[in-house]
């Protein structure tokens, strides 16, 4: 699984880095960021889904792989 934030939609609500701090972080203005390549380790997939489902702006995209 890969995770991505659409910067055109993100408004800095911070639900993602609150719920899944291992997958997301905040930038200097509070917008969400995905550090690294966005690959989600299997044990963090539930957190990734939870972050996506709680984003008020629908700014998080999850791509299931192979």
């Amino acid at each position, binding site marked *: 699984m890969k995770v991505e934030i659409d910067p055109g939609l993100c*408004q800095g609500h911070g639900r993602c880095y609150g719920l899944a701090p291992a997958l997301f972080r*905040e930038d200097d*203005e509070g917008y969400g960021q995905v550090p690294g390549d966005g690959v989600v380790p299997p044990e963090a997939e539930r957190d990734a889904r939870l972050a996506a489902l709680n984003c008020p702006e629908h700014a998080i995209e999850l791509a299931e792989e192979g």
Partner: protein
Amino acid sequence: MAIDDRFTRDSQETGEREVTGTRSEIITGPVRDWATDFSHLEPEWSADPYPIQDDLRQRCPIARTERFGGAWLPTRHEDVAAIAHDTERFSSRSVILSNFRPPRELAPVGGSPPISSDPPFHHDARKLLLPAFTKKALARYEPATRAFCRSLIDSFAGRAVVDAAQDYAQHIPMRVIADMLGFPPQDGPRFREFVEDLLEGINLPPDERVERVSRMFDYLLEQVHDHLDEPRDDLTTYLINAELYGRKLDPSVVTGAMALLLIAGIDTSWSAIGASLWHLAKTPADRERLVAEPGRLPTAMEELLRAYAPVTMARLVKEDMHWHGVEMKAEDWILLSFPAANRDPAQFDRAHEVVIDREVNRHAAFGLGIHRCLGSHLARMELRVALEAWLERIPAFTLDDPGAVTWSAGQVRGPRTLPLRIGRPLAPSPVSHDA
């Protein structure tokens, strides 16, 4: 000392102090039909707006009123979200629905930027403030906030009943905001007056309203002068020195932004803390669960924010248009009810219930789109710390007299009188995890 002549009294012209703008007839009194004559200032709405919103959602779903010179009230999540995201057709020039429309020329800055600003100015004004309001930047205020909450609880010693709205919730954001802006902490009660004047004095005679708003700007100007004489590490000094487009900010932008932080930061958090304690006082199962499992608080808080979202915003329609089934006219108000959006069954399962462990919760308590509440991370910190400090010392409490609870009127809704029976608070824990 350098003279900063931006802040002489003559140069201050802000928001409702402008002589231009449009006034509409003040209409008060019982609502005839909520679909055609709604008013969020009537007691029925402040006592319990949710059944009214639920009814309107089914039969309108966009309600109308001729009060305030004409306004619309969308009640579906879909419509609220569409308006919040559409800054082309809906202006934030004034976000408090009243009988006064500021002049169109006030856009795109508005009286209290950036909340009252439209693009493109909005983005730049907001960018100035965002770094001070990140989760990380606000963490520095958490220990002092916790210590302050504990000192409030210490002051309950010997009392079986306390007013959780007046003796606890209201003081917390007042103290934090005073600290952030660098205002004297003992000025808290004055902030409360400013908040009431601006948010609850909507239907006062125009002259009195202007007079009251002027009092706040006079106070802010005093604080600016104090900071010019003695600059320090706080938001007021930051705003005085901040630059936009290579120039220092207009004085009205400085005091407007200060007004925003003062007004928007106080009774909003006060309301969220109070409404959460009100819910826990009347819902023993939820209270006991949070006492037993404090780790659930972050999830529970989001649900309390959804169910009792304190804040409703306003917009002004830019041009005549047919919109989602209604004929909107230029300068019509929109009452943008995030609380109504948060209880739309099309968006949330069991929308009318408080489900304390609701895991998927895409609520809009902090708004949507470019005006997402600037202070949302501050509000969450205050709410979390206030509830943690309370529950750790007062794990058991009930409503002393449900009939004595009162709620604020207007666009920010929360308990203003909240007598709770608390028994005897537990002694402070000798081990403090953050001292």
